[in-house]
């Protein structure tokens, strides 16, 4: 599903989201409210410049649309892999984007993320994973890294990783695993507008992901470890 079809399914024709060089921006009417929509398309690589473009959009929302909910539509291949982006400080640009989203939440903007196509690694950490909650379409792809590259970097046999990927949520790339591990709040099936409605109504205020991971069995130790530190002498 491309972003146009997605916006039509969510908002009908009551939106003005447009694409400008892989950046999606606009507003939408939904259940009597206006939402700000921000995202990427074309499996955008998030470089220094794209991180800033997204941050600008978030800051504009904070400055000009107080209290408005932000919906992040995510389709990214992850961070741009260029020496020049590292030279300029892409890590700082991404931290800036993440800080902007975090500030929006603290200033009363609800932030909801939806992975509608791909979400890899760094491109995902500073957007969807910093929202109040992140959801995904059932056939979206979420990964840290594709298996051949992971095999190269870890020096583990690709066959071993592939075998583990079948059943082990830690490696398996499917969105079901992110759901089980608490990284996603839900998968949107069927009527997408209804799913958005439900998701907005259920947006948490605290970071529930470790709890969800424990309850769903995908991450058994995270929440318990956090609690043990809180309880330690």
């Amino acid at each position, binding site marked *: 599903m491309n972003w146009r079809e997605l916006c039509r399914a969510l908002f009908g024709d009551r939106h003005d989201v447009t694409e400008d060089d892989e950046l999606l921006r606009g507003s939408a009417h939904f259940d009597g409210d206006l939402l700000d929509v921000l995202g990427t398309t074309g499996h955008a690589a998030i470089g*220094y410049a794209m991180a*800033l473009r997204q941050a600008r959009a978030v*800051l504009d929302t*904070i400055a000009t649309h107080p209290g408005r909910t932000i919906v992040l539509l995510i389709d990214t291949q992850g*961070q741009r892999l*260029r*020496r*020049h*982006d*590292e*030279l*300029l*400080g*892409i*890590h*700082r*640009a*991404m*931290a*800036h984007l*993440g*800080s902007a989203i*975090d*500030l929006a939440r*603290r*200033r009363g903007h609800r932030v909801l993320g939806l992975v509608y196509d791909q979400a890899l*690694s*760094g491109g*995902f*950490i*500073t957007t969807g*994973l*910093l929202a109040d909650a992140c959801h995904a379409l059932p056939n979206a792809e*979420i*990964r*840290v*890294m594709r298996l051949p*590259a*992971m095999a190269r*970097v870890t020096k*583990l046999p690709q066959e071993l990783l592939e075998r*583990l990927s079948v059943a082990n*949520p*830690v490696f398996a790339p499917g969105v079901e*695993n*992110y759901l089980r*591990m608490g*990284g996603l709040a839900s998968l949107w099936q069927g009527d997408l507008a209804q799913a958005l409605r439900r998701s907005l109504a259920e947006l948490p205020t605290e*970071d529930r*992901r*470790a709890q969800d*991971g424990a309850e769903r069995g995908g*991450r058994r*130790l*995270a929440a318990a*470890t*956090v609690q*043990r*530190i*809180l309880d330690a002498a």
Partner: protein
Amino acid sequence: MSLRPTTVTSYAECSARQRLALLLDAGSFHEWLPPAERVTSPHLAQLGLPCAFDDGVAVGRAALEGRSVFVAAQEGAFMGGGVGEVHGAKLVGMLRRAVRDRPDAVLLLAESGGVRLHEGNAGLIAVSEVMRALLDVRASGMPVVVLIGGANGCFGGMGIVAACADHIVMSDVGRHAMSGPEVIEASGGVEEFDARDRSLVWRTTGGKHRYLLGDCDQLVDDDVQAFRAAATRALDQRRPLTLTALEAEHRLLSARLAAAHDEADAFELWRRLGITHPEQVPDRSVRDIGVWVASRRKEVA
């Protein structure tokens, strides 16, 4: 009076625990979930890897010049300092405890390649939980100070996390960036980034470059006591995350992009910052660079 040279202990060569022992007030470190409690990774054995008793990070409370701090130190030698499920949860626990117990500051001795790939999805989610928890600490009024000086640098998701801190101290040995040179070379070829060209790697991601650009707040020698002094100075340097602050950051980062849009390399960037002999920067002492930056800041002020 004879002058004895003081012994310098290399921060880069110390383990995480040695850094804690030497940097914090002697004997003040009280560890939560110490090694004997064996809170280890459940994911490594199936990959044929041994775990570590502390999953590569020690967290606890301590004193620094008598001030209360909560601290975490990542062990770069274990899995490259990568963040896995338990490691990340220890960081989150320390940060959440800081919001509850309100020490004077939070100190993060960061040395990490980012997400521990061996724990894939769990590591990715964990890093974002650390980021949120760190921003919660800042929002509740305590400074977060990050020290970067290990041989592995601070990369990946941890590179982003570290850049969310109030204050960053780096040594010239340290590196702070997003993607490691090997990853970029694997993707874009050696012409894009020759990972074996150490000089290129350090002028792209190393402490001197970051300091000249303004990405870190203090540049110190590879010396544990220098890090201690710098961390102490940082304890009161909070930077509230307000809309005004973020707009200023946005202007700064945008200007940087405009000034370097032509793919200028590090030497050219430094020249544009006003350094007349940029090729000398790699050989200049940390002290000389500090003096130069301080004089520039006076000019601008």
